[in-house]
């Protein structure tokens, strides 16, 4: 058996397979395909598209309208200051901001010392 024989056999087989092809007339297919004519188009595709859009819209609405997560923590508008920020400030700022507390009893102006006995 030569390759040419094999190809002739396959050619004959395909011709046999196509022998009963009943080709519809070109005019009928062409005129049916012209725009404006009802073409067999599955409504299922539009249904799937609509369903997808509706699902996306529902998810969007849910994301927007859902209540905030229930947690005990709430954000505030105060500015957080770290506990060691004061170390970055200059000492003079710290010292000039407040006066050190003084013991009033030790204030020489408010409580002058008693005069010594025997002295003028």
């Amino acid at each position, binding site marked *: 058996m030569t390759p040419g024989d094999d190809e002739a056999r396959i050619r004959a087989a395909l011709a046999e397979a196509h022998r*009963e092809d009943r*080709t519809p007339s070109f005019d009928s297919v062409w005129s049916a395909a012209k725009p404006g004519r009802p073409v067999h188009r599955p409504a299922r595709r539009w249904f799937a598209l609509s369903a997808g859009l509706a699902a996306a819209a529902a998810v969007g609405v849910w994301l927007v309208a859902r209540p905030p997560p229930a947690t005990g923590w709430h954000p505030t508008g105060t500015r957080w200051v770290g506990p060691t920020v004061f170390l970055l400030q200059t000492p003079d700022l710290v010292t000039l901001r407040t006066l050190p507390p003084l013991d009033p009893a030790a204030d020489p102006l408010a409580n002058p010392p008693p005069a010594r006995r025997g002295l003028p």
Partner: protein
Amino acid sequence: MAPPDLEQQIAALHPASFAWALACTRWNSAEAEEVLQSVYLSILEGRSRFDGRSTFKTWLFSVVRNMAARARRRHWLMARAPGRLGGAEPDPDPLDSLASRQRADHIRRALGQLPARQREVLDLVFFHEMSVEDAASVMGVGLGAARTHYHRGKLRLLELLGPEDLR
């Protein structure tokens, strides 16, 4: 709207296009006609345009193949949808020769057992008289891949058909 010469070219290729659509739809004539109608509509609406990079027949056949693949996916989905209706294949002509019909059915069954690419390349080369290169262009595969499908398909089809169908 398609120019008259385009319509003439399509009309001249109409029988071959239908035969190719049949091969792409596993000889489902109703589906093949639907595919061809969709192809013509696509051309008329300008969604498929011939760009001159291949022969007109090669381009048209590639459009038919793509449209058939799309229809196949659609039918696959519809077949799994609930409440579907049965197929509407026309009854065979009772006057046809039974033996001839059986032989053709056997060949089609054998072709149906081939992978799609092998079946397509054999149909394009042996029935539509295309070169393997043009068949590769229609199928959207490289020449090397088309040659591989061609050789494997030939061997497999010869094996499936057996000697009684190869006359």
